[in-house]
């Protein structure tokens, strides 16, 4: 039986520590990890919980992130509750095995502390790694602060392990801005947290000798398509279950989460759509702009990046006049991926708001309240003019001459 950990009602934790406490409270059986900045403390702390008897589990040290996720796949298929953490280059090296985990429907929880991808080398937060995972078949939850890094990690186990879901779940937090920023965190007691997550109930586990199973079958053109379709259906069908888990979490914590979060959107004329800590900074900007200049600004945030909440994004934005979609990832010769997804949803509304794309914050470049205000004001100018008055894609917070692409076609 695990040792009792001394927890206060109010802790000052950074996002990494918060996530590691969720792993302790969920009593993870196996963590296979190859630590990488800025996610290192998550698995490092889990290792110390194991060593000090706070959790009855195994820490498996491996030789690469590819091996780390492979170890997680093996342990999960064997029938254990499994989690790990990574960032950036480590995430990229895991990529091949991420598809194995989701294809085999293994409910592994991966804490992704978002960090830019080299080159040039950078340890700070942007969403390049998060975007790299967007077609991998995992559920992707996004935390905007340390409290949520803890809350989402607990919810992740409940969601992924639900037998109607059976999918791996990533919990994203912004590198350094969340992972290394200590803030007030109000943890659940060990008992409440564990009861919320529940005992792990394996299905099709390889160590069940009464029902031997084959994992990793080969399927060529006569079978592969059907299996991937079924997997996609499961991912889409996880939406109401995520809602249920969030509702149950509110009962034990008092904190309510939604797959799409809306702030000051009831009467909003202009909106910022964002991910991660930017959401909260933009909320401050919206509140201040309403008070200072009477601009009806609001913020829409994606809590659940995958499955992408196409309908909820549409519902939350269809009455707005101008929307700025903020992509914190180098777009690589296209519009921002997040912009494309939000735009596609809004294209199916009768009003079709004006949508522009901002590339910002790469490599951890600061995103300030004043920058958010500037973006809101540009949206207000589009709304007043009735068309997009700037380039559709712009870089924000960049040194040097203005960088932007594409103008609206006007008749």
């Amino acid at each position, binding site marked *: 039986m695990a040792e009792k950990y001394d927890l206060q009602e109010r802790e000052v934790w950074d996002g990494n520590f918060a996530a590691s406490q969720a792993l302790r409270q969920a009593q993870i059986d196996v963590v296979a990890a190859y630590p990488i900045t800025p996610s290192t403390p998550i698995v490092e702390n889990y290792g110390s919980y194991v060593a000090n008897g706070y959790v009855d589990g195994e820490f498996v040290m491996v030789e690469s992130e590819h091996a780390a996720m492979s170890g997680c796949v093996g342990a999960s298929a064997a029938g254990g509750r499994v989690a790990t953490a990574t960032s950036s280059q480590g995430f990229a090296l895991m990529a091949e095995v991420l598809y194995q985990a989701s*294809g085999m429907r293994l409910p592994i929880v991966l804490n992704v502390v978002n960090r830019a991808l080299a080159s040039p080398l950078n340890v700070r937060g942007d969403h390049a790694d998060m975007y790299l995972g967007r077609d991998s078949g995992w559920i992707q939850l996004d935390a905007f602060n340390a409290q949520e890094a803890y809350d989402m990690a607990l919810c992740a186990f409940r969601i992924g392990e639900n037998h109607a879901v*059976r999918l791996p779940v990533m919990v994203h937090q912004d590198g350094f801005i969340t992972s290394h920023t200590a803030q007030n965190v109000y943890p659940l007691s060990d008992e409440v947290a564990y009861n919320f997550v529940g005992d792990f109930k394996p299905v099709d586990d390889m160590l069940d000798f*009464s*029902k031997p199973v*084959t994992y990793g079958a080969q399927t060529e053109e006569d079978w592969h398509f059907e299996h991937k379709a*079924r997997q996609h*259906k499961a991912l889409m069908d996880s939406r109401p279950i995520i809602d249920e888990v969030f509702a149950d979490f509110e009962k034990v914590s008092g904190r309510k989460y939604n797959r799409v979060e809306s702030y000051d959107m009831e009467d909003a004329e202009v909106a910022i759509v964002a991910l991660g800590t930017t959401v909260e900074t933009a909320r401050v900007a919206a509140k201040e702009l309403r008070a200072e200049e009477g601009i009806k600004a609001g913020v829409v945030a994606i809590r659940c990046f995958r499955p992408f909440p196409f309908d909820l994004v549409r519902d939350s934005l269809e009455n707005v006049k101008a929307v700025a979609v903020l992509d914190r990832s180098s777009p690589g010769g296209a519009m921002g991926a997040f912009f494309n997804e939000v735009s596609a949803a809004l294209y199916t509304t009768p009003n079709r708001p004006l949508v522009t794309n901002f590339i910002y914050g790469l490599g951890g470049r600061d995103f300030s309240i004043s920058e958010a205000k500037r973006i809101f004001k540009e949206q207000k100018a589009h709304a007043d003019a009735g068309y997009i008055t700037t380039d559709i894609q712009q870089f924000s917070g960049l040194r040097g001459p203005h960088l932007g692409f594409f103008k609206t076609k006007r008749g």
Partner: protein
Amino acid sequence: MQDLNLLANDNRGQHQLESGGNLAGWHEVTQGSILPSFEGDATNIAHMKAEERTYSNHNSYTATVASWRVKKPVFNIDVCIDCQNCWVWCPDSSILSRDKQMLGIDYDHCKGCEVCVEVCPTNPKSLLMFSEYTPLDEALSQWPEKKKKEEK
């Protein structure tokens, strides 16, 4: 004694590998393409003989691949010394042997690779390749005589 069914209810090689129009739809395939090897509880399966096990349709045991073969090995029990060499070398577990007694060939899974013939040490060989269409008794009637040493 060739292509023998050891038990009446043995489901070895009972179906062709599926292809064409009758395959399951996306809503019917297993979750995660995870394939159970047996029907029902398999707790004591390790202690059971193959023909007693309840192999599922996902297990290759129940499928036949005989149609892939062009030439087949024929087994001559009169020459065999039960050395088990063919059993060890066969890449498809298609040599049927029980209590170290050679019984015959599993023609549902044998792909005709000829390894068993190659490794057979007897003189003449106890396993020889014949056309898929040659009846077994005809094949046995054509079995060569023992070769004399000086003919080497």
